């Protein structure tokens, strides 16, 4: 079905709580349509300070500084932004900085913008190549649980950065019809 993008998807509230419960206090992001509602919640959350980045790689360095200073950080980005992070991820890897990345996917099956496909298809493998522990949420009801697990692994467990890829089957696919923006989603 086609829905307006202004209704909050069911995964957003539990995912926000998962980040709060993990005591994430600094969040860097580059906006993505699939992240709109989560960004609004985090911007409004007084226990979290958000930083709107000009490019995603800034967030990797931000998370490093946050950890040096004793705080936990998460980063939100679209899959295209993963490519912008690659060299900066050396920081997390070399210095064993724990950070959790939430990545909303483009370029998967159902994508009608071919320019999104190369980085969308490479995002997960790119992160893995740089030493990030990657998992994918393919249904709405597993997003928050995977974020919780990623936070436990990263902040309390192995200490390496973790990413949760939120599939287009969760966030929907953007339609390009020449009309106002529309999303095809089963959320």
């Amino acid at each position: 079905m086609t829905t307006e993008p202004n209704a909050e998807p069911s995964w957003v509230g539990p995912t926000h709580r998962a980040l709060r419960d993990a005591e994430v206090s600094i969040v860097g992001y580059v906006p993505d349509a699939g992240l709109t509602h989560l960004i609004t919640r985090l911007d409004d959350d007084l226990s979290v300070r958000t930083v709107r980045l000009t490019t995603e790689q800034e967030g990797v360095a931000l998370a490093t500084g946050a950890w040096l200073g004793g705080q936990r950080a998460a980063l939100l980005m679209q899959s295209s932004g993963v490519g912008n992070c690659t060299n900066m991820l050396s920081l997390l890897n070399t210095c064993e900085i724990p950070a959790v990345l939430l990545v909303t996917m483009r370029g998967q099956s159902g994508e009608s913008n071919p320019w999104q496909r190369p980085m969308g298809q490479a995002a997960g493998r790119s992160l893995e190549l740089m030493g990030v522990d990657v998992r994918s949420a393919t249904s709405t009801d597993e997003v928050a649980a995977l974020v919780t697990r990623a936070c436990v692994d990263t902040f309390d467990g192995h200490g390496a950065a973790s990413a949760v890829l939120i599939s287009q089957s969760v966030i929907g696919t953007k339609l390009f019809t020449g009309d106002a923006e529309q999303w095809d989603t089963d959320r």
Partner: protein
Amino acid sequence: MTGLLDRREVTALLLADRGDLLVVAGLGAPCWDVAAAGDHDLNFGLWGAMGGAAMVGLGLAMAQPERRVLVITGDGEQLMGLGSLSTIGVAAPNNFAIAVLDNERYGETGMQATATASSTDLAAVADACGFVATVTADEPSEVERAIAMCRRETGPVMAVFKISDAIPPQVVPPRDGRLLVSRFRTALGFDG
């Protein structure tokens, strides 16, 4: 022609009587300059991640709002993170300063000219991004004022020091990233 100032003298003055100052050094010569002023648990010197020094400083400044954070980096490193000046201008950390040791050259790679040798004015960029104050020190007589800005004035501030292209002896800090993080966090009272 590059600047008149001596990078090691400027760095030593930036770090004199540093107290509980938190220091991030950008990769390359600024990392060696900071090491030459004395190894310290509260130094985080980057051996990579070019373009990231200012944003590491922002994360640190947000996490430690009661402490002063000083990023010491080079012109080439800061040019790679030019967008971060916009991000920092918006975040507006009042405990944050950047000192750019600007020799107008990529000093580690054959002294190729950077954009600051011709058309880019980093202090003007920081100004345009909303930094509270900026200064460019060209002459020895301007150094004291620029150092005071970095150490004391309400941030975010940037001081650009126009240094000569002389290459002093390399002084290397520890390169084990896990060690650098662990000792920094331990010095702040956190589990390494």
